[in-house]
């Protein structure tokens, strides 16, 4: 039996890999960052159950790592593809980690001693990491990696502190890029999404007003493993914010700046984050400025109802027109029309969270070209037929799951991942019959 290639190590890629591996099919899981986990690893809680996100994800990540049928290739990308379903030849480029994966114990002493600081992508750039670092505490594989653009040895030819302090002798500056060739029967794409950068929507002042954050940044701020240890200190003055507002559909559902589609999960995650604020401090004021509440999933309506009645989260219908900042206090005033009463109002708060659109991964174009699969008008992977073949791409033997073919929440991504695993297993079975 030939292995299956899974591209992308977020929750969808992990689920697809595990499903296949449990059926006895070997899997190569290719991930471009130093750890699998994806965006779900950055989230504090999940909706609508308010379960700890990493507590659900980490066991699956570990299972991936320990499963005899799964080989994880981190810091790797797909560079070429030939062949047809049942007999794909792919080349995978592995970028050097500069650390020996067999020797590193993940103790973190190297990062502690490293003198170079860089914004941490995992902490949504609200916190810092070192030039040699572990992606996050639960990273899989738990192996340090060197950011060669930041490391003093690679940029200036000095330092080598990490090599000195590493008792496992794991640091290997001389590691080189490596290309491996794989022969696989089918390919599952699970490359996920990116966050829309709301800088383009000038009226909300993101990047200009320090107390305007995106929802993913807030997710790190409210998380116990985040840069503030879960204390809601706002960026401008470190004051704990008790009056917070969310703005929905930032860059989504718009005909002007952004994308016309709905980002699918924002109404629910905003509600989740609002409840988190209330759980932290029940006397806090939380407002969600929304256009429509799109809460159609299982248990979603009940969750929003509870947020309103039990926690006192205020929902205001109307797309805010502008945010202004008080020059002294740095408090923010949202100008909006409450369309339920037809009145123009103001809401002054300490922190504003923008629920930004989920947008196509910027690598999709390149990857789509390599794989010969079609993208839709926005740059998401397109599927053969939205009704009868919702996880099949334009090329036979290549499947998609999760938010790389449109915004999705976690439950839907997981369900689709299992669907692609079933499709890939079907290809295997067909191959067996043919002999």
């Amino acid at each position: 039996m030939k292995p299956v290639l899974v591209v992308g190590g977020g929750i969808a890629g992990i689920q697809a890999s595990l499903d296949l591996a449990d059926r006895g099919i070997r899997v190569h899981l290719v991930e471009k960052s130093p750890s699998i986990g994806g965006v779900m690893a950055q989230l504090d809680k999940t909706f609508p159950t308010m379960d700890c996100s990493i507590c659900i994800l980490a066991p699956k990540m570990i299972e991936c790592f320990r499963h005899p049928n799964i080989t994880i290739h981190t810091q790797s990308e797909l560079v070429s593809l030939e062949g047809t379903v049942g007999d794909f030849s792919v080349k995978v480029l592995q970028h050097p980690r500069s650390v020996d994966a067999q020797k590193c114990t993940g103790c973190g002493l190297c990062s502690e001693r490293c003198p170079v600081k860089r914004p941490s992508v995992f902490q949504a750039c609200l916190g810092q990491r070192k030039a040699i670092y572990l992606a996050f505490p639960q990273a899989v594989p738990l192996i340090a990696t060197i950011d060669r653009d930041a490391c003093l040895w690679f940029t200036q030819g000095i330092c080598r502190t990490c090599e000195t302090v590493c008792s496992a002798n794991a640091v290997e500056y001389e590691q080189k890029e490596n290309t491996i060739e794989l022969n696989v029967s089918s390919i599952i794409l699970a490359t996920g999404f990116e966050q829309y950068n709301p800088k383009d929507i000038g009226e909300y002042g993101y990047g200009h007003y320090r107390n305007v954050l995106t929802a993913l940044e807030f997710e790190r701020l409210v998380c116990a493993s985040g840069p503030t240890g879960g204390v809601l200190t706002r960026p401008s003055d470190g004051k704990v914010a008790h009056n917070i507002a969310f703005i929905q559909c930032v860059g989504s559902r718009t005909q002007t700046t952004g994308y016309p589609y709905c980002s699918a999960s924002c109404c629910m995650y905003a509600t989740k984050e609002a409840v988190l604020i209330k759980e932290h401090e029940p006397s806090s004021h939380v407002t969600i400025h929304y256009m429509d509440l799109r809460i159609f999933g299982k248990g979603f309506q009940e969750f929003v109802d509870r947020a309103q009645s039990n926690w006192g989260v205020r929902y205001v219908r109307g797309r805010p027109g502008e945010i202004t900042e008080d020059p002294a206090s740095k408090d923010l005033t949202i100008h909006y029309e409450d369309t339920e009463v037809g009145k123009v109002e103001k809401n002054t708060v300490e922190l504003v969270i923008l629920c930004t659109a989920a947008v196509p991964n910027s690598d999709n174009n390149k990857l789509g070209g390599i794989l010969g699969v079609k993208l839709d008008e926005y740059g998401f992977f397109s599927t053969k037929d939205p009704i009868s073949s919702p996880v099949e791409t334009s090329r036979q033997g290549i499947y998609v799951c999760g938010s790389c073919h449109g915004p999705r929440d976690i439950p839907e991504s997981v369900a689709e991942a299992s669907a692609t695993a079933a499709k890939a297993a079907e290809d295997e079975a067909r191959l067996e019959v043919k002999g």
Partner: protein
Amino acid sequence: MKVAFYPGCTVQADQIGYEASVRNTMPKLGVELIDVEGASCCGYPPFSSVNEAAWYYSSARNMALAERMGLPILILCNGCHLSFTETKHFLANNPIIKAKIDEKLSIEGLTYVGDVELIHVFDLFHNKLGEEKIKQAVTKPLTGFKFGAHPGCHAIRPNKLIRPDDSENPIKLDELIQWLGAETMDYPGKIDCCGSSLAPASGKTVMEIAGDKLRMVKALGLDGLVTTCPFCFKVYDNRQRAIQSTVGASVEFPVFYYTQLLGLAMEVKPDFLGLDLNQSPVDSVLARIGGS
């Protein structure tokens, strides 16, 4: 640098202080102002509700005059600048209307090609002259002052047409003021409308809108409000007493044209900058700058 100079009706009819400050500062910065002979009204966009073609004709006529001079045209008023920009954009995409306008222009022997460069005051100072040149011209920096910039709607909107500055976070006027040695503050409502376009419909609304801004900048303890648009200035400076009686609060606050501050920093005498025509209380600022 030679430019065709188009002050516009409002400036020539009742904002002569602005014109004076421009005529007495720009030549010192190497900008030669050549008046557009036979210039008329820019067309004034609200006029389009009566006769759209007449608006395009008026705008195109002035641009044709500048084209005949072979010079870029410097426009002092935000409204005129937008009027020309809109006409230029419209005629470039509507050959049938353009043919009609061409026909009317030919009566005077004018032709409108549509390649004239339109220079806004921000463009001139910020892009063409630049930081170094302005800083060099400053002999008496306005150190210790903190002003609020009011770019005005038409300088920044609509963002679908090319405007001199960003529609949501305009910074050019702030930087121009900073180059004179003063500070600026990014105050809330900086990009709000002055209200003047509403004057024919509801004078009271204009006063309320303008009053909001004046009270805001006053409360923030700024030293003055600075603009380059004659319409905005007319409201903020000339109408302070009317605003006061409408909103029932004191809104007395110094308001300047940018070129007046520029002149002061270049040690041009206040009389030559039309400062005696400012109706807002600018005397305290002048006294602090001194040398008058």
